[in-house]
């Protein structure tokens, strides 16, 4: 693929007025069509064999769309950071595996973590600027109680601790998320491109243990406009 960029700055598509019958045949029309096509080619390919791409570098410092959110392609939803454990059962070796988490009224959880967040275009509402928590767990006994999560990201925002609660119930495993199953929520972990230092505390108001077998921070926000 080779060629010269006919309109490196011609980022504006044509309006309906400009493409209508009997519209003036300005040279800029074909220039912008060619320039936009060339720009989109480079965003797809991330490359051109006749010199450096004329498009701006993406947040990774490379060229082309990398699915890190608009305008570098739609963001992919996926886990950003994972905690994976397994509570003891009849079948699993050990009395309580070392990587297992549990919480009750007398024993809160504290997880400091260092997380790399994909470089992304920084603007309000960028998909990778928010992480949402999901956990899989169960009470040791039947019943229900409330979990409280406190979190802070020292790398983003004011560094203030945020708190939210969640009701959990039953002694069989269930999936819980702090985003109300897909509805928009104000409770999220603010994330910035690069390294993030996040601390998480989970506490309980019940003497009954709540076992956490999986705790995941996910890129949750899909594209919308």
């Amino acid at each position: 693929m080779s060629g010269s960029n006919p309109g490196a700055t011609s980022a504006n598509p044509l309006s309906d007025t400009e493409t209508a019958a009997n519209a003036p045949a300005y040279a800029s029309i074909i220039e912008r069509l060619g320039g936009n096509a060339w720009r989109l080619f480079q965003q797809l390919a991330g490359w051109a064999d006749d010199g450096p791409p004329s498009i701006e570098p993406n947040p990774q410092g490379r060229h082309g769309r990398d699915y890190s959110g608009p305008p570098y392609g739609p963001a992919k939803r996926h886990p950003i950071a994972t905690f994976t454990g397994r509570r003891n059962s009849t079948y699993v070796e050990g009395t309580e595996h070392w990587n297992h988490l549990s919480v009750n009224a007398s024993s809160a959880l504290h997880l400091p973590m260092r997380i790399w967040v994909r470089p992304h275009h920084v603007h309000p509402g960028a998909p990778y600027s928010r992480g949402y928590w999901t956990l899989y767990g169960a009470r040791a006994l039947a019943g229900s109680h409330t979990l409280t999560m406190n979190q802070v990201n020292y790398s983003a925002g004011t560094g203030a601790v945020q708190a939210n609660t969640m009701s959990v119930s039953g002694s069989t495993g269930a999936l819980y998320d702090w985003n109300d199953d897909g509805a928009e929520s104000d409770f999220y972990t603010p994330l910035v491109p690069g390294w993030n230092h996040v601390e998480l505390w989970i506490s309980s108001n019940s003497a009954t243990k709540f076992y956490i077998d999986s705790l995941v921070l996910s890129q949750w926000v899909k594209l919308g406009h």
Partner: protein
Amino acid sequence: MTRLTWTTGDKATPWREVDTDSLSLTTAWQRVLKLIGLVSDMATGANTPPITLDASGVSGKGCPLGVPLAQEIRRKVPYAVNSTEGGYLAICPIYLPDGEDSFRVELDHCPRLESLNVKFQILQPSDFTVLAERDPVYLDHLVTKPAIATFTGLDDGDGYILAVAADLTSGNVGAGGALRVVFPRMGSVIGPDPTKGIGDDISLNTQAGATSAVIADLVDLDSTWIGDEYPIDARSVDAAARNLATLDEMILGRPAMGANASYTLANSTGDSDPADDAFLSGSRSLYANEPVMDFPLWTWHGGVCPGDGGLGNTLGRVTDDGYPPGVKANISGGTALVYQAGMFPDFKVSDGTGLRVTALFYSPDGSVAGVGSTPRFWVRAYDETLSTMATSTQVHGSWSNPTGNWHVAEVTLADFNEDKIGMIGVGYDTSVGVMKANDGSSLRLAGCSAYFVKV
């Protein structure tokens, strides 16, 4: 009707052909329309484009994604480890996606422990040959600082074993903490003016798109529209502009800039159905041949493992709790040793992509797991209600066996909860065997990874 098609040797329009006062050449207009057609074909995968995008960064195939291979959160739990032959603080399979041949790996450790030297290794999964090794890193027991190494020059699109080896002989104490395997590239994060088509227009609502949004079709640009001495008519200009507006949104994932708002794309039914994804995301929603890509999901390590000296006898453990998990009883149908919940991307399994899970098992006594018969590697996918969506197994006879103690198993899941929260369970099924007693000698899951691969 003859579709204008980009062929080898075609060139993009030189600026001099479209500058003010340039001649209105037929070739110039053809080049513009052919280029639009090429972009359209690359994006949709239709009409056998000359370039197939796979996010490998090679030969114009798209930018690598930079999605981390592993970001495993850990409590810093100490182990009393006292193997006679050394061992691993962490060991697990990894898969390098297309376009990535270098990475940075970090392992946290506990400052309360004794200091020790560790070295990072990349092992060949088939025989545990050390392909690359980084000089020992000294972990100071007084400093909370991760051990870090960088590997370069590996083969993308290949699976490896990542190991953090340590001298765990008498007197030393080790810990396997949080594991991160990342591609820490960082360029500009400011980008273009966010007021031009993005910024506030990006909704944080996961229910994406307005209900009245239209998924526009791309129009074939016809060769009969162009000929010597033909006028450049409004029809062809309008079709080209419309295609470009659609492609701009589809490729970049932002609202159309300027006019042509009626062509604005949006997902039609919200966040949970890849089938209505109007954007170029590898979801194969609108176009059956939409290009797909490798995509890492998660990697996990089970903690300290000894070398081939044997887990049961030579490891001076405090309790079984410090080991990687294993199964101690017969389980018909299998059971999970680890779970991973969370959000899954909107790929379609068996439609260009596959969700593959690779596991590394350790057999303490050198035999297969201390079971009386052949175990099965077992992976299950669950939806958000924890209903089973798919189960895949592989019998031990099909596992690769790099050494007497180590075993590598791999399966591809037939389904997963695409674009929603869900869960994967990884373990094994001993329904065909008889387990030994709970003496610490059963098969242990040392590590595993899950990733999407092009199929």
